[in-house]
């Protein structure tokens, strides 16, 4: 445990809290990078996912593409783009945006797909326009799965942003690679602990958000059903929801 106390001492060392390599600076770099990447990826993936989810068109293509993208190792994509555009922050942005799109896209369209078809049929039958169906029915009911997708994407970007320090002077990952070069295990381990803590904190925040965005009335918490309802679909729906949203996915 000696190694860990060294690492904790490294984290607490005031020298590491000032200058160009200060922990707060690296941490905010890491966060800003993650946030911007997620915003760009969301701007592309969410509207596209809603469109696929609402119309049901292009689903096969989306599944195949995102499945294929998942098999691509991040490090390979990162180094390849870095060779093309040069060392710097552009390569990580490009590579990570590409990798953040599939989970968000999947979250957006599976959220729509998981909604009971009869609910949407009824909304149409009482006179909602297509846009109103999307806004008032599909988006609120699909939100938990979309947030689940964002959760995967966030964890993925946080993790890969660490790796991005391999090709750019960026974020908490610098401590890992700098320590590796100088064989300073306290720095490597300290940096690693910081990244892990960051990932766990964000995971916790997302877990909380996900609980809040489940529309009231849909969540399993409200089960105060009076008599045994025969409306089979409505009673099984929350279960399949939790099955899907409960999966804290993503990678590193």
């Amino acid at each position, binding site marked *: 445990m000696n190694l860990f106390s060294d690492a904790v001492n490294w984290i607490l060392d005031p020298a590491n809290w000032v200058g160009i390599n200060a922990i707060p600076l690296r941490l905010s770099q890491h966060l800003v990078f993650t946030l911007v990447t997620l915003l760009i990826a969301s701007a592309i993936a969410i509207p596209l996912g809603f469109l696929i989810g609402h119309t049901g068109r292009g689903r096969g293509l989306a599944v195949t593409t995102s499945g294929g993208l998942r098999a691509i*190792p*991040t490090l390979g994509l990162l180094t390849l783009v870095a060779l093309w555009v040069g060392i710097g922050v552009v390569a990580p942005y490009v590579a990570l945006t590409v990798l953040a799109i599939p989970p968000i896209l999947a*979250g957006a369209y599976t959220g729509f797909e998981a909604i009971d078809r009869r609910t949407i049929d009824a909304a149409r039958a009482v006179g909602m326009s297509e846009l109103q169906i999307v806004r008032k029915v599909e988006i609120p009911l699909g939100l938990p799965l979309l947030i689940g997708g964002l959760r995967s994407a966030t964890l993925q970007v946080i*993790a890969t942003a660490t790796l991005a320090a391999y090709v750019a002077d960026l974020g908490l990952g610098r401590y890992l690679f700098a320590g590796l070069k100088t064989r300073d*295990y306290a720095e490597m381990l300290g940096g690693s602990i910081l*990244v*892990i803590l960051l990932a766990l904190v964000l995971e916790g925040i997302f877990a909380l958000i996900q609980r809040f965005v489940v529309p009231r009335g849909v969540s399993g918490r409200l089960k105060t059903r009076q008599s045994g309802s025969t409306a089979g679909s409505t009673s099984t729906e929350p279960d399949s929801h939790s099955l899907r949203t409960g*999966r804290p*996915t993503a990678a*590193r």
Partner: protein
Amino acid sequence: MTWVLSNLGLIWARILDHVVLSLPPIVLCFVIALPLGWLARRYRVSRGIILTGAGLLYAVPSLPLFFVLPAVIGTGLRSPLNVIIALTLYGVALMVRVVSDGLDSVDADVRQSASAVGYSAWSRFWQVELPLSGPVLLAGMRVVAVSTVSLVTVGAVIGVQSLGSLFTDGFQRGIQAEIIAGLVATVGLALLFDGALVLAGRLLMPWTRKAGPARRTAPIEVSAA
């Protein structure tokens, strides 16, 4: 292309390294996750502990884990064992959930009728519940296989050789072809493992074959980095 042709031996060696690093985690995680997943489904308390633990473990980024593991288990920083253990942990983290969901997916009527015709709890698990949750387990294992193959490459930055070494080497020496070769080989290997699992599924679960368009029973969202 010329780089690839003149370095076929190197690529082959890295492929073998890669298989050696990725196969044990894939196999081990299944063996470990099976009892854990069963335990998670069996008792309310163990369910909370195991599934929360698995969720948190799964959220830990791989690169930092490669650095932390040696400090915990005393291996050398560049030991391949770090990569194997770390990826086994990820596999377990994912599969525990899948096993528990898979066992959940078995129809309660089927379970009860199995008991009614005289299966003991033990034989019911092996002969009824496990086979019937097979499709869900298979879907989970396919995700594990693809993400493990992909994650092995990360080990290259701490010096554990694999197809990932083609990325670091190609990057440092500015050889695009080397990186592309690494990408193609990694994706190819992932597809090979995936295909092998699908084939194994067909052989082991002949009753699922006529099931029409392959619908994933448990949507598992996973991305590898």
